[in-house]
């Protein structure tokens, strides 16, 4: 073997405990090296993942195709949009992505009940794949959890070209106790299916990131929809009890999680 070329150790050479851990992390470990560089197979794999993630950022969501007519009907799900009217505008004008256009405002006002305990909205964010994969499992869990706790659950809607700051406008329009925005995260190389839940207590136009809490990394190598829903519901209960949200509120891990 030429000097400086190091192969990755085989799984069978690893102690049992290390093998177990390796299976639990999506991080690219024990890949070996070619001198001070990647082995060729590693380099090509990275470029393949990069290409897939790059494509995911540019794609648009089709509500009916993604969720199916039955799901839309069951959840009364409808679509609104922000002032960003194209993907390019969305990427370059964060301010537009934080405001509904006028037609969307009227639609939300006419269709959604106000002053609910838990208002869920779904935003495409930077990954349509995340929304498509996680929301069908997550949304029913959140609605069930709200019901069990006796909370009034708002009518959910989907927001095209959406940024996190839209929570403030949701608050101004619908005055919920707790607002939850399920939004597609930046695709990474390990997954393009990662969803975040951004949450705020009685959001209004004065809110900044300091007033929000986050449950991130809901995907198959991260939090399961069940664990994600538990964390969101636990945080919502904390917010209702404390009457606030944001960095001062330290999320308690749900009791059934290690």
């Amino acid at each position, binding site marked *: 073997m030429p000097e400086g070329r190091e192969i990755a150790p085989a799984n069978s050479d690893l102690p049992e405990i290390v093998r177990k*851990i390796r299976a639990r992390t999506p991080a690219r*470990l024990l890949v070996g090296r070619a001198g001070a560089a990647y082995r060729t197979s590693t380099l090509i794999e*990275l470029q393949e993942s990069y290409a897939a993630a790059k494509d995911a950022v540019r794609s648009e969501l089709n509500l009916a195709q993604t969720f199916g007519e039955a799901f839309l009907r069951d959840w009364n799900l409808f679509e609104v949009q922000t002032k960003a009217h194209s993907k390019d505008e969305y990427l370059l004008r964060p301010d537009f992505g934080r405001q509904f256009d006028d037609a969307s405002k009227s639609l939300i006002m006419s269709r959604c009940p106000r002053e609910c305990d838990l208002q869920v909205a779904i935003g495409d964010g930077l990954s349509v794949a995340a929304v498509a994969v996680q929301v069908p499992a997550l949304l029913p869990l959140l609605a069930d959890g709200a019901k069990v706790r006796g909370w009034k659950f708002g009518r959910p809607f989907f927001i095209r070209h959406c940024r996190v700051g839209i929570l403030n406008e949701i608050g101004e329009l619908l005055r919920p106790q707790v607002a939850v925005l399920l939004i597609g995260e*930046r695709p990474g190389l390990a997954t393009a299916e990662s969803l975040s839940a951004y949450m705020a207590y009685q959001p209004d136009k004065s809110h900044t*990131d300091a007033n929000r809490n*986050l449950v991130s990394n809901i995907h198959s190598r991260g939090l399961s929809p069940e664990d994600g829903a538990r964390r969101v519901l636990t945080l919502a209960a904390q917010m209702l009890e404390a009457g606030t949200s944001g960095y001062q509120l*330290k999320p308690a*891990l749900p009791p059934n999680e290690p």
Partner: protein
Amino acid sequence: MPEHFPFSDLRELFAKANEEKSGDQLAGIAARSEKERVAAKGRLADLTLAEIEQQPLIDPDHDEVSRLLLETFDQEAFQSIKSLTVGEFREFLLDDATSEESIKRIQRAIIPEIAAATAKIMGNKDLILAASKIRNITRCRNTMGQRGVLGIRIQPNHPVDDIGGILFAAFEGLLYGCGDAVIGVNPATDSVETVAAILRALDRLIQIYGVPTQACCLAHISTQLAAMERGAPVDLLFQSIAGTEAANRSFGISLATLREGRDRVVGQHRSRGVHWAGANAMYFETGQGSALSADAHHGVDQVTLEARAYGVARVFEPFLVNSVVGFIGPEYLYDERQIIRAGLEDHFMGKLLGLPMGCDVCYTLHAAADQNSADNLLMLLGAAGCNYFMGVPCGDDVMLNYQSTSYHDALAVRKLLHLRPAPEFLAWLQQNGIYRDDEPALLDEPANRRKLMQGLEASLEGIA
């Protein structure tokens, strides 16, 4: 006859003298043409440093950062440079006759606005050359920043904070000679229990291997302090900071928060049975565009606001400071040209202001950048003498979902530019057979790897 461009005030002149940035365009303050841009640069080059010092860009009555910058400014040392124009000051910094020592003597007389103004009239190569003169050395559990040293932060993040996954990624980093800057984990959740568990696990790994380095969990400052109250060891207290009071408020902090946090961590250091090489105890991250993103920019451009964040940082004598230069996205730094420019500006301004500047050379997948452009910036900043870079397994952060630099990249930069790990850390690498002299040793002898892995197994006991 040349076109005439009137500039109504210093704020406008500063903004228009910037190289093109999508963030300044978003804020509506960028130059509208290349001619206007160069006219602004020319005017800025002719201003004296005193003229800049006398006209604060953000009113001290309305911003505690402006007040802090005034209070911590070395008036006496400023006398020797105040009559220089920005253009003359640029030449002073680049002059072969200007030593590192002579720059250090006036470091505290350089207010952030002067550092920013100088960066605006420098080319990329100037930024590299001038920065390479200045080494800002800091000490915590080891010593960082000497000439010839390149540190690496191991960033072993995990999507659900799995302690085993974090420690395994950290262990792998150590085998590549990374981790002298810090082993620093961004937690996926801001819960006190999780942050405390991560801090305890990293401390155990460091103890078992006897690694002369420091650990950090990059949660909100209040969460780290709450974990510390519960007995978790905090080597470096982390916080993201920005250049205005309002932007810091959006991070949930004020200057008082930072002051109190630093005092408490330094107090805790004294109570621990650990060898401290020095008293630097803070770790800050920054990035151009953060104030605008929080709608807290006061019409000031993002280069100047970034410099002001460094003005905040230096008051708290941090061990590490880095901008996370490509993280913020294309609305503030559109493409690789803008990211590379911002990375070089940030590093230069930070070094000039006295900070132990590193850089998270990175990009997100929605910006017009890729791994090749990250490779470019990595090499340029290596040549500029950047204190440290990030080490992420294969550059792919599986929790934050962005692309940074890898353990392999660390090997490459150190090899190409003949740089070494921090001295205490290098000695440890040599003792453990990970380095032979100043070069990484091959670790494919199964016996050596297996021996080293015993420590990992021990540190995993009871948690995996």
